[in-house]
């Protein structure tokens, strides 16, 4: 974590699309009168989604004005939550988990791949396709190491399959989300080593 500031290059204005506007109105309506500010996180999230996964200043002000909050209140929230990106990200925004289980299972090697193929953290690759950041635990420790790319998880990574994954994404080929080694969930790799009397071949 470090000091987070708004991006230097900012778009002139921000306007919600009609669909997003309608969606936001529904969110706001969930809260009692005078408590519209409660919708600030969903509103920022939708604004970020609409704006290629990052929040420009104009969007922060738009959300504040929509919800009747002082601008600084919304800026506080946007800078507090690290999932709000304040600077542009690549078309594929890779969030790599570097917390203990992933680290023990080799996330350092995944980082090396990213550094080689994408470049340093929090910088968009020249072609605009990729950027990456190391984040705290994303809660998929059973299938460590893992990354989140945009809205999807990619698990059971190795340097080889991860490199292929990045190439496929860059080339626009369809990719498989979830485990990259064929697991359907978080069941053990290979054969069961415990609870064999209850599950698998040995059960009954």
């Amino acid at each position: 974590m470090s000091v987070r500031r708004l991006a230097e290059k900012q778009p002139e204005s921000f306007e919600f699309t009609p669909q997003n506007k309608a969606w936001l109105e529904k969110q706001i309506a969930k809260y009692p009168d005078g408590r519209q500010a409660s919708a600030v996180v969903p509103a920022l999230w939708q604004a970020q989604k609409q704006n290629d996964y990052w929040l420009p200043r104009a969007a922060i002000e738009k959300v504040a004005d929509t919800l009747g909050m002082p601008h600084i209140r919304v800026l506080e929230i946007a800078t507090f939550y690290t999932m709000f990106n304040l600077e542009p990200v690549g078309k594929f925004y890779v969030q790599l988990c570097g917390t203990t289980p992933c680290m023990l299972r080799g996330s350092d090697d995944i980082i090396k791949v990213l550094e080689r193929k994408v470049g340093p953290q929090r910088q968009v690759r020249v072609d605009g396709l990729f950027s990456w950041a190391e984040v705290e635990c994303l809660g998929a420790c059973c299938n460590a190491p893992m990354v989140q790319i945009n809205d999807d998880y990619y698990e059971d990574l190795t340097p080889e399959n991860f490199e292929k994954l990045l190439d496929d994404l860059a080339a626009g080929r369809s990719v498989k989300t979830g485990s990259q080694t064929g697991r359907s969930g978080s069941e053990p790799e290979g054969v069961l080593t415990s609870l064999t009397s209850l599950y698998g071949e040995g059960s009954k």
Partner: protein
Amino acid sequence: MTKILVDGVEVDVPPEFTLLQACEEAGAEVPRFCYHERLSIAGNCRMCLVEVKGGPPKPQASCAMAVKDLRPGPAGAPPEVFTKSPMVKKAREGVMEFLLVNHPLDCPICDQGGECDLQDQALAFGGDSSRFIENKRAVENKYIGPLVKTEMTRCIHCTRCVRFTAEVAGTGEMGAIGRGEDMEITTYLQSAMSSELQGNVADLCPVGALLPKPQNFRARPWEYQKTESVDVQDALGSAIRVDTRGREVIRILPRVNDAVNEEWISDKTRQVVDGLARQRLDRPFIRESGRLRPASWQEALGAVAAKAKSTAGAKMGALVGDLAALEEIFALKLLAEKLGILHLDCRQDGSRVDPSFGRASYLFNATVAGIEDADALLIVGSNPRKEAPVLNARIRKRWLKGGFNISLVGERADLTYDYQYLGAGPDSLLQFIQREQEPAKKRLVLIGQGALARPDGDAILALAAQAAQRRGGISEGWNGFSVLHAAASRVGALDLGFVPGRGGLPAHEFVKRGALDLVFNLGADEIEIEPGAFVVYIGSHGDRGAHRADVILPGSAYTEKSGLFVNTEGRVQVASRAAFPPGEAREDWAIFRALSGALGDALPFDSLTQLRKALFERHPHLQRLDAIESGDAGSIAKLAQHSAVAMKDPFVSIIADFYLTNPIARASAVMAECSALAQSRLRQAAE
């Protein structure tokens, strides 16, 4: 009431009291940074940790735990709090150590040094040495306006400033961005604050992160001579402390006065300081062939006496400005009586308030503290945010409690609270009076000078009296008819009857060309005296009045004399001398005494004490300091019967520029900077 033991001392406190309040009740000292009586509870500094018996078995933040949260012991023994136990001592040392981890040890170059909460509490409750050898965090300084300088590395994240702007000032301009160690206090993208109360955040800051910018590196707290006084920048009469070093006033701070200003003062009150040293009239001047030339007192007084002797009483007038104390108004009144002057006025703005309607007709009868008892508010022709920012904060405080219906007739403005807009002029007020609706029980009718300083001001005053009578403003034990003045001298001058005598002209008529031959102008700078009359200006600053003058007699500013002031509620307060007037300038009452001597008919006093004695003999209510002689509510009923016809024109606020309302403020460079900033903000908003 609940019994609780604090360090073995039993106290009986209301159950909703916090432990910290209970400890204070028992006389135990609890250190704190984030907790402040007049702000919401944050509980984030952890300095107020205490040990409790009857609650969780760990150190508890006493500011955030209520007495009722503690369970009684076996057999109903009262819960216990310890503030001096080893656990508490260790906890405080730990908190202090963490606070000092990132706090620079730059006390020798920090302006807060000597009056710093962190410094004092580190000494009293901290450890004896530092174990921290790593690098400290550094934080970029922020621009948050012309009045507050930031040194953000010193910030300990107590968030008092954030809560102040959100709750009291009502602008919500400050915030804490980022999180954890990287949390930073700032305004939105370092924009300047727009509140008229922003200077208070520097007082609230327990460390040297927010400091008053104009006083940057000027003096150390222990070098100041501290004088308790009252403010004259608006009619509220906020309690202030004037800090001087040598002959110079360096800063003005608020004093606590719950009846008036709680512990806030406006930025004009606080930072008008440099205006006290600039543009001063430090010697008498006489106009000769169109130019003012320095003169001796004897010469100047002789010139005035010669002119006065050759002028008939009916061709002379006397005018009192906004900053005059009772003493000089009284002296001028006596002098006018001796000279047979009928054309007296203290209402340079043309306000139609008049003592003949009774004292209640020009007082803020509800009192400032009474705002909190009101259940509805009607604002007529006023922008309290500009006319009395601290009073506006009190209205906001009442509004935040809820169940307070505010309506406004006059100019639309951002008052920091919501209101129902009724309309712009007298018609809307009339409609309001005639409404078929259940009246409020304790309505406050706040009448600003914007409604009264116009030719039909008396008609508006009568309408407002009707509104108060018919819409729940007057009842047993409640008089909600409240006039908000903008001039500090106004109520006092009205009390002394400084208004035209029988056959006398009001100010805006006698300043007309050819009306009079000689005008005594006691610091009235906001009125244009048309060419023709010989003007004697008695005042402290070379402002509009002095430019028009034929003779200037240099007087003293409010920090340079002991003077009585009556605030808009009718509360008599005394301002004390903190410094001496510059050069040959004298106290204003003494000037009139000397002038009367030059005229050969001396006023009957030789000292301030004798003057006050004479003053109190004539007006006994003025000797009761800090007390309000309340007006008779019956005169409101009589006022309501006053027949005059209101015009259709909308009400216009009398304050065009909050920062430049009087000669002292106009002489201040800091106020000029604030004004320029406010004007550019207005222009931006208009685009």
